[in-house]
């Protein structure tokens, strides 16, 4: 679990200060994180469905919903949700009952669980892992199973064809999606989404999309593959109203149907959020002095003993910036849907296999060779931005002590995390560390009593 309150995690706060046992502390902390995430997961589709109807209306020269909740119809999503809840729960006679009921939950579970590793701000992530991106793609790949089981178990030919096409499309587009997401990872050198976000503080040219031309193209390819993997037009063969009635969700109505759509809109926000972290600066605004001030507040908050208000507020602002960027990308997806006509299934597969896949392979190769070529030709690894090794202060033992659960000692040698003084010329220059001048702090002492319960660590 991640440090949210000062330098302690919620779980250690519950264990040490409130006095719960490790198991109950972990369970309660997990419950809190899951509660926040499931509310996010449920409210975002409401907002995006309203946004889709308004944007599509405007694109088509009409108004969209205008009645529910005032002039702009912003409660229309809620009205839709209420209508869907009270609909009859229908299972066709020819359907395989257990699989038919299970399929929406599978799709929803995959889309929801992937929020576990998505950071909303610096350190504001339910499960920080240094393989966060890998885990995210592993979990997202489970959504295909829900779709395919839905199509198969509905007992209707529209659903079966839609499910098969959809499964082929989603599975094929996972490859350019993953390799396109690997290109900035190769540029930065870490799979951890929080680390990638931290690397992009500063002016807007520090964003990873401007690192090298291969990452720039990879952003476009990633976004295309993400649109396809979310089954959005122009790749929405699975829901092709003119061809397949409604594809894999033909036989679904009411709340089961809405689970599929919650999964779809949540997955849209998820891939947009990942795109904004990987390419567009995560939770940073891109304005140099503002980012410097916010980042120094965040660093002080991470290393502090007690609750550090400016750090928390800076993180809140970062979360707002991140949600804005994700929502903007979702609006771009909505805009593309209502502008471009639909592709045929053979065109969809051809785009993936003949165009996107070779493109991503070439981009990956280029991104891997770019630092080598740059170092040989110009002597520095980046064209005009700071090299990644200098952008972020390495975590000192002081940071590690502050973040570790078991150590009670406050770091006296916190010179490493003081934001005020610096002599090294890093990106922003005001919040970076004095690397190499202060002696390394002593290693933290081992915990006092070893004979404690093993259990949850």
């Amino acid at each position, binding site marked *: 679990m*991640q440090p949210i309150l000062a330098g302690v995690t919620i779980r250690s706060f519950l264990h040490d200060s409130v006095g719960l046992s*490790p*198991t*109950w502390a972990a*369970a309660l902390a997990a419950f809190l994180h899951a509660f926040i995430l499931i509310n996010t997961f449920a409210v975002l589709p409401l907002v995006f469905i309203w946004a889709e109807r308004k944007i599509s209306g405007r694109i088509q020269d009409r108004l969209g919903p205008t009645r529910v909740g005032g002039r702009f119809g912003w409660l229309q999503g809620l009205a839709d949700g209420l209508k869907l809840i009270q609909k009859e729960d229908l299972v066709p006679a*020819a359907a*395989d009952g*257990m*699989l038919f009921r*299970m399929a929406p939950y*599978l799709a929803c579970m995959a889309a929801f669980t992937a929020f576990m590793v998505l950071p909303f701000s610096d350190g504001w992530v339910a*499960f*920080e*892992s*240094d*393989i966060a991106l*890998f*885990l995210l*793609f*592993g*979990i997202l*790949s*489970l959504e*295909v*199973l829900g779709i*395919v*089981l839905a199509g*198969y*178990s509905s*007992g209707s030919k529209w659903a079966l064809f839609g499910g*098969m096409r959809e*499964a*082929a499309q989603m*599975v094929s587009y*996972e490859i350019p999606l993953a390799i396109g997401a690997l290109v900035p990872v190769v540029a930065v050198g870490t*799979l*951890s989404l929080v*680390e990638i976000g931290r690397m992009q503080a500063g002016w807007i040219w520090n964003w990873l999309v401007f690192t090298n031309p291969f990452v720039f193209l990879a952003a476009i390819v990633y976004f295309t593959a993400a649109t396809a993997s979310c089954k959005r037009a122009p790749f929405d063969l699975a829901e092709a109203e003119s061809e397949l009635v409604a594809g894999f969700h033909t036989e679904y109505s009411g709340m089961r149907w809405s689970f599929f759509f919650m999964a779809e809109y949540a997955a849209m926000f998820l891939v947009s959020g990942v795109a904004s972290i990987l390419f567009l600066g995560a939770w940073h605004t891109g304005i140099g002095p503002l980012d410097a001030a916010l980042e120094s507040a965040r660093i002080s908050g991470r290393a502090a003993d007690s609750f550090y208000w400016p750090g928390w507020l800076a993180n809140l602002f970062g979360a707002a910036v991140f949600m804005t960027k994700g929502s903007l990308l979702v609006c771009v997806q909505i805009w593309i849907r209502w502008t471009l006509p639909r592709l045929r299934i053979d065109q969809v597969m051809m785009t993936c296999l003949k165009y996107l896949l070779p493109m991503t392979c070439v981009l990956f190769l280029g991104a891997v060779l770019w630092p080598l070529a740059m170092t040989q030709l110009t002597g520095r690894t980046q064209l005009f931005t700071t090299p990644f090794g200098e952008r972020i202060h*390495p*975590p000192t033992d002081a*940071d*590690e002590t502050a*973040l*570790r659960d*078991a150590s009670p000692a406050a770091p006296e040698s916190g010179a490493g995390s003081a934001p005020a003084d610096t002599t090294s010329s890093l990106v922003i220059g005001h919040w970076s560390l004095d690397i190499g001048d202060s002696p390394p702090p002593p*290693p*933290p*002492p*081992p*915990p*006092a*009593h*070893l*004979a*404690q*319960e*093993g*259990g*949850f*660590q």
Partner: protein
Amino acid sequence: MTGAQLLFWILALGACGGAIAVVIAQNVVRMAFWLIVSLGSVAGLFFQLHADFVGATQLLIYVGGTVVLLIFGVMLTASGPFLKIKTSTAELLLSAGIGGLVFVMLYTAVAGVDWNRAGADVIGAGRIPRDQFEEFVAGLEASDRERLESLYMLDESTDDPVYRLPPGRLSASDRDFLVAAWNAQERLNRPPAAPEGGTARPIGLSLVGLRPDRDLGADADSRLSTGYLLPFEIISVHLLVVLIGAAYLARAKRRTDAGGAP
């Protein structure tokens, strides 16, 4: 029962129950669903053992790849709406016999592990060099230090004296104490910026030959271990050959008529 044990039992029930359900289910697609449950629970078990990279790979490859392939194969080759599989009695008896033999083999392998020593030799805590041992023990409280020194035995027969854990059964409290000690020691040596799990970096380093348990802290002029990258690449080329071979074998064969009708 602690929370970790409860979680383990839930995941183990999912893994084993799902596997049994795969065998028992009559409908082929339902078998695929229970396989998802089983493989997902195994991924959960990997995460509980702090092997995050392996758990994520299990999800990505097995559940997201192999099971999807399975479902495709089932759906494309099923002749009826919901295909059912019936087995004869002879097949049941034969499979029960083979299953029993495999079970006996696995049981003897598992029962042969000395769980009492909590895998001391596996994680390398069976013998600890003297300076490492004394450095760790110096930071402990007196009671813990004495207990640790009483459990380990100094062996000065070679040039580098080591502290050995003598063979023989340990009491339950001794074993728990030692496990806590090893966990604490591991936590001190954990590389920075690897909060939860953090096995990806050691795996990556081991691939190129820098094994954290052997080469980290070794002398500057000692050779690195053999990396795992070459066998990894050989296996991937092997898999590619298998895929191409399977695709070739499964191709639609063109029928040539003697009369040459179109």
